[in-house]
C-alpha cells in the first residue's frame, strides 16, 4: 500500500509521457501550452482564498469556534454523540487542515485504534471539505454565486457524519 502511494504520481507522469510520445505528441510544447493556462487559473483563485482564509482566521482566533463547539455540547448529549466528536463534525465542512488537526488530536489523546480514535478517523475521511472545494472549483471559473450547492454539500456532510458514527459503532461490535 505504501509503495503504491509513493509510486502513484511518478507512475502517472511516466504513463502520460510515454503514451504521449507513442502517439506522436510534441510533449514539451504541449506541456508549456497547458501550464500557461494553469497559471492563469491559479491567479484567479487568490480573491477566493482571501475571502475564506480571512473569515476562518477571525472565527478561529477570536474564540468563536471554541464557543460554538461548547454551545453544542447539550446537543451532542441529546443526540447521544460523544461530546469530543461533535466539534470535529462542525469543523469538517469548513477547514481541511482543521479537521486533520482535530482528528490527530483525538487519535493521540485516546489512541488511534480506540472507539473514539476510529470514529474520528472515519468522520475525517468520510467527505471532502465543502467550503474549500466550492471555493476553489467555482472560483476557478469565476462563479461567485454557488446557488444551492452549499446546502447540497452541507446535507451530504451531515449524512456522512451520522453514517460515520453509526458505522464506527457497528464496526466495533462486529
Amino acid at each position, binding site marked *: 500500500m505504501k509503495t503504491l502511494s509513493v509510486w502513484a504520481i511518478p507512475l502517472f507522469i511516466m504513463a502520460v509521457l510515454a503514451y504521449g510520445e507513442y502517439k506522436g505528441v510534441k510533449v514539451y510544447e504541449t506541456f508549456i501550452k*497547458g501550464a500557461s493556462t494553469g497559471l492563469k487559473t491559479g491567479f484567479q483563485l487568490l480573491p477566493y482564498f482571501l475571502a475564506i482564509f480571512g473569515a476562518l482566521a477571525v472565527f478561529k482566533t477570536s474564540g468563536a469556534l471554541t464557543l460554538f463547539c461548547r454551545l453544542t455540547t447539550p446537543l451532542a448529549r441529546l443526540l447521544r454523540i460523544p461530546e469530543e466528536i461533535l466539534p470535529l463534525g462542525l469543523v469538517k465542512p469548513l477547514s481541511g487542515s482543521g479537521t486533520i488537526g482535530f482528528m490527530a488530536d483525538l487519535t493521540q489523546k485516546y489512541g488511534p485504534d480506540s472507539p473514539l480514535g476510529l470514529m474520528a*478517523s472515519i468522520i475525517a475521511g468520510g467527505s471532502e471539505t465543502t467550503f474549500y472545494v466550492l471555493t476553489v472549483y467555482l472560483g476557478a471559473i469565476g462563479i461567485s454565486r454557488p446557488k444551492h450547492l452549499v446546502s447540497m454539500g452541507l446535507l451530504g456532510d451531515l449524512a456522512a457524519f451520522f453514517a460515520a458514527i453509526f458505522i464506527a459503532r457497528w464496526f466495533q461490535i462486529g
Partner: protein
Amino acid sequence: MFTINKIWFALFFLGFLVAGATGRVEETTLALIAAMEESVSFTLGLIGFLAFWSGLLKIAEAAGITQGLARALHPFLRRLFPRLPHDSPAIGAITLSLAANLLGLSHAATPLGIKAMHELEKVNPSPGEVSDEMAVYLALILGGISFVPSTIIAVRSRAGSTRPSVVILPILIVSFIGTTVALCTHFIIKKTRKESKK
C-alpha cells in the same frame, strides 16, 4: 438557506463580536492580517502544482488518454450527465478528476477538477451560473469517495496505530452515503424549482 453570503458575513461578524467579548481583538486582527499573507503564499504554492498538472493533462488530452478513459466509464457517467456527449472534453476531464480522487491522489485531483470545471463552463447553457452538470459533478467530488484515504492513514500511523488502514472500508461506505445524499439533494431542489416555475 445557507447562502455563502450569510455564512461569510456571520464568520466575520460573530468572530469580531466574540473577539470583543473575550478581549482578543488585537490577536484576531493580527490573525486576519496573517491570513491575507497566507492566502498569497498558498496561492503561489498551488500555482506551481496547478500549472504543472495542467501541462501534463494537455499532453494526456492530445494523446487521447482522456477520451479513452471516458469511454470506459461511459455507462456510469451517461446516467449522471445525460446532456453531455460521451466523447466531449468535459466528460474526459470529469473522468480523469474522479479517477484521481478514487486513487487518493489528492494533490493531482485539484488541478484535474479545475480543468473539469473549465470544460463544463464551456458547455454551460447560462455561463457564469452553476449548471446542472456542475452541481452533479461537485456532488461527486464533495462526497469524497476514495479507495485510498491517504492523509487519514498517514495520521493514524503517525499516532501509533497497529492497523492504520482498517478504516478504508468504513470510510468508503460513509463517503458513498454522503455522496448519495448530496446527489439526491440536488435532484430534489432541481425538481421543486422546475415545478415552481411552471
